[in-house]
Protein backbone atom coordinates (compact mmCIF):
# COMPACT_ATOMS: atom_id res chain seq x y z
CA UNK A 1 0.00 0.00 0.00
CA UNK A 2 1.34 3.37 -0.95
CA UNK A 3 1.92 5.43 2.14
CA UNK A 4 -0.84 8.00 2.36
CA UNK A 5 0.87 11.13 1.30
CA UNK A 6 -0.66 13.81 3.43
CA UNK A 7 -1.17 17.50 2.91
CA UNK A 8 2.31 18.25 4.23
CA UNK A 9 5.12 19.14 1.88
CA UNK A 10 6.79 16.22 0.15
CA UNK A 11 10.25 16.10 -1.38
CA UNK A 12 10.42 16.11 -5.16
CA UNK A 13 13.26 16.32 -7.65
CA UNK A 14 12.42 18.20 -10.80
CA UNK A 15 14.87 18.81 -13.60
CA UNK A 16 14.23 22.44 -14.46
CA UNK A 17 15.99 23.75 -17.56
CA UNK A 18 18.51 20.95 -17.33
CA UNK A 19 19.31 21.35 -13.65
CA UNK A 20 18.02 18.89 -11.03
CA UNK A 21 16.27 20.81 -8.25
CA UNK A 22 15.30 19.27 -4.91
CA UNK A 23 12.20 20.97 -3.61
CA UNK A 24 9.63 20.38 -0.88
CA UNK A 25 6.09 20.99 -2.10
CA UNK A 26 2.61 20.48 -0.70
CA UNK A 27 0.42 18.31 -2.96
CA UNK A 28 -2.11 21.05 -3.66
CA UNK A 29 0.48 23.44 -5.14
CA UNK A 30 0.67 23.79 -8.88
CA UNK A 31 3.81 23.49 -10.95
CA UNK A 32 3.25 27.13 -11.92
CA UNK A 33 3.34 28.38 -8.31
CA UNK A 34 6.34 26.21 -7.50
CA UNK A 35 8.27 27.43 -10.55
CA UNK A 36 7.56 31.05 -9.69
CA UNK A 37 7.98 30.88 -5.91
CA UNK A 38 10.16 27.96 -4.82
CA UNK A 39 12.30 27.81 -7.98
CA UNK A 40 12.46 31.59 -8.41
CA UNK A 41 11.68 31.45 -12.13
CA UNK A 42 9.18 34.21 -12.77
CA UNK A 43 9.40 34.16 -16.56
CA UNK A 44 6.43 31.78 -16.64
CA UNK A 45 3.36 33.96 -16.09
CA UNK A 46 0.09 33.42 -14.26
CA UNK A 47 -2.78 34.88 -16.25
CA UNK A 48 -5.99 32.98 -15.54
CA UNK A 49 -4.73 30.05 -13.41
CA UNK A 50 -7.41 27.78 -14.98
CA UNK A 51 -6.00 26.68 -18.34
CA UNK A 52 -7.59 29.32 -20.56
CA UNK A 53 -4.82 31.82 -21.40
CA UNK A 54 -1.59 29.87 -22.00
CA UNK A 55 0.62 32.42 -20.20
CA UNK A 56 1.91 29.58 -18.00
CA UNK A 57 2.90 27.27 -20.88
CA UNK A 58 6.01 25.17 -20.15
CA UNK A 59 7.38 21.99 -21.67
CA UNK A 60 6.97 18.85 -19.58
CA UNK A 61 9.30 16.18 -20.98
CA UNK A 62 9.20 18.21 -24.20
CA UNK A 63 5.40 18.50 -24.49
CA UNK A 64 3.56 21.80 -23.91
CA UNK A 65 1.29 21.97 -20.87
CA UNK A 66 -0.44 24.61 -18.77
CA UNK A 67 1.71 24.71 -15.62
CA UNK A 68 -1.33 26.01 -13.71
CA UNK A 69 -3.10 22.66 -14.31
CA UNK A 70 -0.26 20.38 -13.24
CA UNK A 71 0.41 19.50 -9.61
CA UNK A 72 4.08 20.01 -8.77
CA UNK A 73 4.19 16.64 -6.98
CA UNK A 74 3.27 14.92 -10.26
CA UNK A 75 6.40 16.25 -11.90
CA UNK A 76 8.75 14.44 -9.52
CA UNK A 77 11.50 12.85 -11.61
CA UNK A 78 10.52 14.64 -14.81
CA UNK A 79 11.99 17.47 -16.89
CA UNK A 80 10.50 20.94 -17.23
CA UNK A 81 11.63 23.59 -19.69
CA UNK A 82 10.58 27.19 -19.09
CA UNK A 83 11.21 30.37 -21.06
CA UNK A 84 14.42 30.80 -19.02
CA UNK A 85 15.71 27.53 -20.43
CA UNK A 86 15.17 27.79 -24.17
CA UNK A 87 18.18 29.93 -25.06
CA UNK A 88 21.00 27.82 -26.48
CA UNK A 89 23.63 29.45 -24.23
CA UNK A 90 23.69 32.19 -21.58
CA UNK A 91 24.54 35.11 -23.84
CA UNK A 92 22.51 34.04 -26.85
CA UNK A 93 18.77 34.13 -27.28
CA UNK A 94 16.65 31.48 -28.98
CA UNK A 95 15.89 32.43 -32.61
CA UNK A 96 12.22 32.81 -31.63
CA UNK A 97 13.17 35.40 -29.03
CA UNK A 98 15.26 37.27 -31.62
CA UNK A 99 12.40 37.26 -34.14
CA UNK A 100 9.83 38.41 -31.59
CA UNK A 101 12.04 41.41 -30.80
CA UNK A 102 12.96 42.19 -34.40
CA UNK A 103 9.38 41.99 -35.67
CA UNK A 104 7.59 43.65 -32.75
CA UNK A 105 5.65 40.52 -31.81
CA UNK A 106 5.63 41.46 -28.14
CA UNK A 107 3.96 44.55 -26.70
CA UNK A 108 3.19 44.39 -22.97
CA UNK A 109 5.00 41.05 -22.99
CA UNK A 110 2.79 39.20 -20.55
CA UNK A 111 1.76 36.50 -23.04
CA UNK A 112 5.19 36.33 -24.68
CA UNK A 113 6.95 33.65 -22.57
CA UNK A 114 4.00 31.27 -22.95
CA UNK A 115 3.70 31.97 -26.65
CA UNK A 116 7.41 31.51 -27.33
CA UNK A 117 7.48 28.22 -25.41
CA UNK A 118 4.38 27.05 -27.31
CA UNK A 119 5.92 28.18 -30.60
CA UNK A 120 9.06 26.21 -29.79
CA UNK A 121 6.91 23.12 -29.18
CA UNK A 122 5.23 23.68 -32.55
CA UNK A 123 8.50 24.11 -34.44
CA UNK A 124 10.00 21.06 -32.70
CA UNK A 125 7.18 18.98 -34.22
CA UNK A 126 6.71 20.86 -37.49
CA UNK A 127 9.71 22.94 -38.67
CA UNK A 128 7.76 24.57 -41.50
CA UNK A 129 4.24 25.37 -40.30
CA UNK A 130 1.66 27.22 -42.40
CA UNK A 131 -0.14 30.25 -40.99
CA UNK A 132 -3.18 28.04 -40.29
CA UNK A 133 -1.07 25.50 -38.45
CA UNK A 134 0.50 28.25 -36.32
CA UNK A 135 -2.89 29.75 -35.48
CA UNK A 136 -4.32 26.31 -34.66
CA UNK A 137 -1.30 25.57 -32.47
CA UNK A 138 -1.59 28.87 -30.59
CA UNK A 139 -5.33 28.48 -29.90
CA UNK A 140 -4.61 28.15 -26.19
CA UNK A 141 -2.45 31.29 -25.95
CA UNK A 142 -4.26 34.57 -25.55
CA UNK A 143 -2.66 37.92 -26.37
CA UNK A 144 -4.50 41.11 -25.49
CA UNK A 145 -2.12 43.44 -27.32
CA UNK A 146 -0.77 42.39 -30.67
CA UNK A 147 -3.74 41.07 -32.62
CA UNK A 148 -1.57 38.00 -33.31
CA UNK A 149 -0.47 39.05 -36.82
CA UNK A 150 3.08 39.89 -35.79
CA UNK A 151 3.29 36.81 -33.59
CA UNK A 152 2.43 34.59 -36.55
CA UNK A 153 4.92 36.51 -38.73
CA UNK A 154 7.67 36.13 -36.14
CA UNK A 155 7.14 32.38 -35.90
CA UNK A 156 7.14 32.00 -39.68
CA UNK A 157 10.28 34.12 -39.94
CA UNK A 158 11.98 31.97 -37.32
CA UNK A 159 11.06 28.80 -39.17
CA UNK A 160 12.57 30.22 -42.37
CA UNK A 161 15.74 31.34 -40.60
CA UNK A 162 16.25 28.06 -38.84
CA UNK A 163 15.73 26.17 -42.10
CA UNK A 164 18.22 28.45 -43.88
CA UNK A 165 20.77 28.09 -41.10
CA UNK A 166 20.21 24.33 -40.90
CA UNK A 167 20.24 24.78 -37.15
CA UNK A 168 19.29 21.94 -34.91
CA UNK A 169 16.22 22.97 -32.95
CA UNK A 170 17.59 22.94 -29.45
Amino acid sequence: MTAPITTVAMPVTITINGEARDLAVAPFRTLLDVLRNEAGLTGTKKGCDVGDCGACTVLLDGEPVNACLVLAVEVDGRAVTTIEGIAPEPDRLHPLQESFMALGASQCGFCTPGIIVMAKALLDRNPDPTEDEIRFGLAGNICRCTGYTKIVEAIRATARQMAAAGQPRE
Partner: protein
Amino acid sequence: MHPFAYFEPTTLDETVALLARHGRTADLMAGGTDLLVEIKEQIRRPAAVINLKKIPGLADLTCDAATGLRIGALVTVRTIETSAEVQKLYPALAQAARDIGSIQIRTRATIAGNVCRASPSADTLPPLIAYGGRIEMVGPSGPRSIALESFFTGPGKTALADGEIVTALVLPPQPEQAGSDYIKHGRRKAMELATVGVAVALRRDGGVCRDVRIVLGAVAPTPIRARAAEVLLEGSTPDETTIAAAGCAARGESRPISNVRASADYRRAMVDVLTRRAVAAAWERTR
Protein backbone atom coordinates in the same frame (compact mmCIF):
# COMPACT_ATOMS: atom_id res chain seq x y z
CA MET B 1 -6.20 25.58 -3.90
CA HIS B 2 -7.51 24.26 -0.63
CA PRO B 3 -5.39 21.53 0.99
CA PHE B 4 -6.12 17.90 0.19
CA ALA B 5 -4.44 14.60 0.95
CA TYR B 6 -2.79 13.11 -2.10
CA PHE B 7 -2.39 9.49 -3.11
CA GLU B 8 -0.53 7.80 -5.93
CA PRO B 9 -1.72 4.19 -5.94
CA THR B 10 0.21 1.81 -8.18
CA THR B 11 -2.42 -0.92 -8.69
CA LEU B 12 -6.14 -1.00 -9.38
CA ASP B 13 -6.78 -3.01 -6.20
CA GLU B 14 -5.08 -0.37 -4.15
CA THR B 15 -7.13 2.33 -5.87
CA VAL B 16 -10.41 0.53 -5.22
CA ALA B 17 -9.41 0.14 -1.55
CA LEU B 18 -8.54 3.84 -1.30
CA LEU B 19 -11.87 4.80 -2.82
CA ALA B 20 -13.69 2.50 -0.40
CA ARG B 21 -11.86 4.09 2.49
CA HIS B 22 -12.44 7.71 1.48
CA GLY B 23 -15.83 7.39 -0.18
CA ARG B 24 -17.23 10.51 -1.71
CA THR B 25 -14.67 12.77 -0.04
CA ALA B 26 -12.09 11.56 -2.58
CA ASP B 27 -11.80 12.57 -6.22
CA LEU B 28 -9.97 10.57 -8.87
CA MET B 29 -7.54 12.48 -11.05
CA ALA B 30 -6.48 11.41 -14.54
CA GLY B 31 -5.41 14.45 -16.61
CA GLY B 32 -6.64 16.91 -13.99
CA THR B 33 -7.64 19.59 -16.49
CA ASP B 34 -11.25 19.65 -15.24
CA LEU B 35 -10.67 18.51 -11.66
CA LEU B 36 -8.05 21.11 -10.76
CA VAL B 37 -10.16 23.91 -12.24
CA GLU B 38 -13.16 22.73 -10.21
CA ILE B 39 -11.06 22.63 -7.04
CA LYS B 40 -9.66 26.10 -7.71
CA GLU B 41 -13.13 27.46 -8.39
CA GLN B 42 -14.43 25.70 -5.26
CA ILE B 43 -16.97 23.70 -7.20
CA ARG B 44 -15.39 20.65 -5.54
CA ARG B 45 -13.63 20.45 -2.19
CA PRO B 46 -12.21 16.91 -2.04
CA ALA B 47 -10.46 15.85 1.17
CA ALA B 48 -8.33 13.52 -0.93
CA VAL B 49 -7.16 13.42 -4.54
CA ILE B 50 -6.23 10.01 -5.94
CA ASN B 51 -3.90 10.38 -8.91
CA LEU B 52 -4.26 7.42 -11.28
CA LYS B 53 -1.16 8.14 -13.34
CA LYS B 54 1.12 5.70 -11.54
CA ILE B 55 -1.01 2.64 -12.36
CA PRO B 56 0.84 0.64 -15.04
CA GLY B 57 -1.03 -0.23 -18.23
CA LEU B 58 -3.79 2.37 -17.93
CA ALA B 59 -2.10 4.58 -20.54
CA ASP B 60 -2.07 1.80 -23.17
CA LEU B 61 -3.64 2.40 -26.57
CA THR B 62 -4.19 -0.33 -29.13
CA CYS B 63 -5.77 0.35 -32.48
CA ASP B 64 -5.97 -2.07 -35.35
CA ALA B 65 -8.40 -3.04 -38.07
CA ALA B 66 -8.87 -6.59 -36.79
CA THR B 67 -9.30 -6.03 -33.06
CA GLY B 68 -10.65 -2.49 -32.85
CA LEU B 69 -9.66 0.33 -30.55
CA ARG B 70 -8.87 0.08 -26.88
CA ILE B 71 -8.28 3.35 -25.03
CA GLY B 72 -6.84 2.96 -21.53
CA ALA B 73 -8.18 5.36 -18.92
CA LEU B 74 -5.01 7.46 -19.00
CA VAL B 75 -4.72 7.84 -22.80
CA THR B 76 -4.63 11.55 -23.54
CA VAL B 77 -6.80 13.43 -25.98
CA ARG B 78 -3.63 14.50 -27.80
CA THR B 79 -2.57 10.88 -28.26
CA ILE B 80 -5.91 10.08 -29.93
CA GLU B 81 -5.76 13.26 -32.03
CA THR B 82 -2.28 12.47 -33.36
CA SER B 83 -2.50 8.67 -33.76
CA ALA B 84 -2.27 7.78 -37.46
CA GLU B 85 -4.21 4.53 -36.86
CA VAL B 86 -7.06 6.30 -35.05
CA GLN B 87 -7.18 8.98 -37.76
CA LYS B 88 -7.51 6.28 -40.38
CA LEU B 89 -9.91 3.85 -38.70
CA TYR B 90 -11.91 6.15 -36.37
CA PRO B 91 -11.68 9.57 -38.04
CA ALA B 92 -14.72 11.01 -36.22
CA LEU B 93 -13.03 10.37 -32.86
CA ALA B 94 -9.72 11.86 -34.00
CA GLN B 95 -11.63 14.93 -35.23
CA ALA B 96 -13.56 15.30 -31.95
CA ALA B 97 -10.27 15.05 -30.03
CA ARG B 98 -8.79 17.83 -32.15
CA ASP B 99 -11.81 20.02 -31.37
CA ILE B 100 -11.19 20.04 -27.60
CA GLY B 101 -9.52 23.00 -25.84
CA SER B 102 -5.91 23.75 -26.76
CA ILE B 103 -2.85 21.59 -27.42
CA GLN B 104 -1.70 22.28 -23.86
CA ILE B 105 -5.03 21.01 -22.49
CA ARG B 106 -5.16 18.02 -24.85
CA THR B 107 -1.64 17.00 -23.82
CA ARG B 108 -2.93 16.44 -20.27
CA ALA B 109 -6.66 15.73 -20.64
CA THR B 110 -7.77 12.11 -21.09
CA ILE B 111 -10.56 10.62 -23.20
CA ALA B 112 -11.83 8.69 -20.16
CA GLY B 113 -11.89 11.93 -18.17
CA ASN B 114 -13.96 13.58 -20.89
CA VAL B 115 -16.35 10.61 -20.65
CA CYS B 116 -16.57 10.59 -16.84
CA ARG B 117 -17.12 14.33 -16.72
CA ALA B 118 -20.31 13.60 -18.77
CA SER B 119 -20.80 17.12 -20.02
CA PRO B 120 -23.72 17.20 -22.48
CA SER B 121 -21.48 19.13 -24.89
CA ALA B 122 -18.37 16.91 -24.57
CA ASP B 123 -16.93 16.40 -28.04
CA THR B 124 -15.74 12.80 -27.77
CA LEU B 125 -19.04 11.34 -26.57
CA PRO B 126 -21.02 11.42 -29.86
CA PRO B 127 -18.32 9.61 -31.87
CA LEU B 128 -17.58 7.09 -29.09
CA ILE B 129 -21.29 6.19 -28.99
CA ALA B 130 -21.67 6.24 -32.79
CA TYR B 131 -18.85 3.69 -33.07
CA GLY B 132 -20.69 1.41 -30.65
CA GLY B 133 -18.19 1.92 -27.83
CA ARG B 134 -18.26 0.23 -24.45
CA ILE B 135 -16.82 1.34 -21.14
CA GLU B 136 -14.94 -0.96 -18.77
CA MET B 137 -14.95 -0.36 -15.05
CA VAL B 138 -13.65 -2.06 -11.94
CA GLY B 139 -15.02 -1.74 -8.42
CA PRO B 140 -15.39 -3.55 -5.11
CA SER B 141 -17.48 -6.27 -6.77
CA GLY B 142 -15.07 -6.78 -9.68
CA PRO B 143 -14.95 -5.65 -13.30
CA ARG B 144 -17.92 -4.91 -15.55
CA SER B 145 -18.55 -3.29 -18.89
CA ILE B 146 -21.57 -1.51 -20.39
CA ALA B 147 -22.43 0.20 -23.68
CA LEU B 148 -21.42 3.85 -23.58
CA GLU B 149 -24.83 4.68 -24.94
CA SER B 150 -26.37 3.79 -21.57
CA PHE B 151 -23.52 5.20 -19.45
CA PHE B 152 -24.72 8.80 -19.39
CA THR B 153 -27.69 9.48 -17.12
CA GLY B 154 -27.74 13.29 -16.99
CA PRO B 155 -25.49 16.34 -17.13
CA GLY B 156 -22.40 15.33 -15.13
CA LYS B 157 -24.09 12.05 -14.16
CA THR B 158 -23.12 8.54 -15.20
CA ALA B 159 -23.80 4.90 -14.40
CA LEU B 160 -20.43 4.68 -12.62
CA ALA B 161 -21.21 3.38 -9.13
CA ASP B 162 -19.61 4.65 -5.91
CA GLY B 163 -16.20 3.08 -5.57
CA GLU B 164 -15.83 2.21 -9.25
CA ILE B 165 -13.01 3.31 -11.56
CA VAL B 166 -13.09 3.45 -15.36
CA THR B 167 -10.26 1.37 -16.80
CA ALA B 168 -10.79 1.56 -20.58
CA LEU B 169 -13.00 2.51 -23.50
CA VAL B 170 -13.38 -0.16 -26.15
CA LEU B 171 -14.56 0.33 -29.72
CA PRO B 172 -15.37 -2.63 -31.95
CA PRO B 173 -13.46 -3.19 -35.21
CA GLN B 174 -14.77 -1.15 -38.10
CA PRO B 175 -16.75 -3.06 -40.76
CA GLU B 176 -15.77 -3.12 -44.44
CA GLN B 177 -16.51 0.14 -46.25
CA ALA B 178 -17.16 2.03 -43.03
CA GLY B 179 -17.57 5.79 -43.06
CA SER B 180 -17.90 8.26 -40.20
CA ASP B 181 -17.66 11.93 -39.33
CA TYR B 182 -17.97 14.35 -36.42
CA ILE B 183 -18.89 17.99 -36.90
CA LYS B 184 -18.74 20.47 -34.07
CA HIS B 185 -20.44 23.81 -34.22
CA GLY B 186 -19.32 26.59 -31.90
CA ARG B 187 -19.04 30.35 -31.84
CA ARG B 188 -15.34 30.16 -32.64
CA LYS B 189 -12.97 27.52 -33.94
CA ALA B 190 -11.06 26.58 -30.80
CA MET B 191 -11.12 26.80 -26.98
CA GLU B 192 -14.88 26.47 -27.22
CA LEU B 193 -17.66 24.23 -25.98
CA ALA B 194 -19.86 22.74 -28.67
CA THR B 195 -23.15 24.50 -29.43
CA VAL B 196 -24.11 21.37 -31.34
CA GLY B 197 -22.04 18.29 -32.17
CA VAL B 198 -23.11 15.56 -34.57
CA ALA B 199 -21.39 12.19 -35.08
CA VAL B 200 -22.35 9.73 -37.81
CA ALA B 201 -21.07 6.19 -38.38
CA LEU B 202 -22.36 3.89 -41.13
CA ARG B 203 -21.21 1.37 -43.70
CA ARG B 204 -21.80 1.01 -47.43
CA ASP B 205 -23.57 -2.07 -48.75
CA GLY B 206 -23.64 -1.72 -52.53
CA GLY B 207 -25.62 1.46 -53.13
CA VAL B 208 -27.25 1.73 -49.71
CA CYS B 209 -26.11 2.50 -46.17
CA ARG B 210 -26.41 0.12 -43.23
CA ASP B 211 -25.82 0.17 -39.48
CA VAL B 212 -26.39 3.89 -39.38
CA ARG B 213 -25.75 5.58 -36.07
CA ILE B 214 -26.32 9.27 -35.59
CA VAL B 215 -25.46 10.78 -32.21
CA LEU B 216 -26.23 14.36 -31.23
CA GLY B 217 -24.28 16.27 -28.60
CA ALA B 218 -25.16 19.45 -26.65
CA VAL B 219 -28.87 19.26 -27.53
CA ALA B 220 -30.16 17.14 -24.60
CA PRO B 221 -29.09 16.37 -21.00
CA THR B 222 -26.92 13.56 -22.41
CA PRO B 223 -25.70 12.68 -25.91
CA ILE B 224 -28.66 11.10 -27.77
CA ARG B 225 -29.17 8.81 -30.76
CA ALA B 226 -31.29 10.33 -33.53
CA ARG B 227 -33.13 7.08 -34.11
CA ALA B 228 -35.81 8.34 -36.47
CA ALA B 229 -33.11 9.79 -38.69
CA GLU B 230 -31.19 6.51 -38.54
CA VAL B 231 -34.28 4.54 -39.61
CA LEU B 232 -34.83 6.83 -42.59
CA LEU B 233 -31.30 6.18 -43.82
CA GLU B 234 -31.06 2.48 -43.01
CA GLY B 235 -31.12 0.49 -46.27
CA SER B 236 -31.50 3.64 -48.40
CA THR B 237 -29.28 5.44 -50.82
CA PRO B 238 -28.26 8.65 -49.10
CA ASP B 239 -29.25 10.99 -51.94
CA GLU B 240 -30.14 14.60 -51.37
CA THR B 241 -33.81 13.93 -50.56
CA THR B 242 -33.10 11.16 -48.05
CA ILE B 243 -30.35 13.15 -46.36
CA ALA B 244 -32.65 16.18 -46.10
CA ALA B 245 -35.35 14.01 -44.51
CA ALA B 246 -32.81 12.60 -42.03
CA GLY B 247 -31.66 16.10 -41.07
CA CYS B 248 -35.25 17.12 -40.49
CA ALA B 249 -35.93 14.01 -38.39
CA ALA B 250 -32.81 14.58 -36.25
CA ARG B 251 -33.90 18.15 -35.68
CA GLY B 252 -37.24 16.86 -34.39
CA GLU B 253 -35.51 14.43 -32.02
CA SER B 254 -33.23 17.03 -30.41
CA ARG B 255 -34.31 18.57 -27.11
CA PRO B 256 -32.00 21.56 -26.72
CA ILE B 257 -32.11 24.29 -24.13
CA SER B 258 -31.38 27.98 -24.64
CA ASN B 259 -28.30 29.25 -22.85
CA VAL B 260 -25.53 31.78 -23.21
CA ARG B 261 -24.04 29.88 -26.16
CA ALA B 262 -27.16 29.54 -28.33
CA SER B 263 -30.94 29.50 -28.34
CA ALA B 264 -32.86 26.24 -28.56
CA ASP B 265 -34.24 27.22 -31.98
CA TYR B 266 -30.78 27.91 -33.33
CA ARG B 267 -29.49 24.62 -31.98
CA ARG B 268 -32.36 22.74 -33.64
CA ALA B 269 -31.62 24.44 -36.96
CA MET B 270 -27.95 23.49 -36.65
CA VAL B 271 -28.82 19.85 -35.84
CA ASP B 272 -30.57 19.72 -39.22
CA VAL B 273 -27.65 21.28 -41.12
CA LEU B 274 -24.88 19.34 -39.36
CA THR B 275 -26.67 16.00 -39.59
CA ARG B 276 -26.99 16.43 -43.35
CA ARG B 277 -23.33 17.40 -43.69
CA ALA B 278 -22.08 14.62 -41.41
CA VAL B 279 -24.11 11.92 -43.18
CA ALA B 280 -22.88 13.12 -46.57
CA ALA B 281 -19.26 13.22 -45.34
CA ALA B 282 -19.48 9.76 -43.72
CA TRP B 283 -20.96 8.31 -46.93
CA GLU B 284 -18.23 9.95 -48.98
CA ARG B 285 -15.60 8.26 -46.79
CA THR B 286 -16.99 4.78 -47.53
CA ARG B 287 -15.71 4.98 -51.09
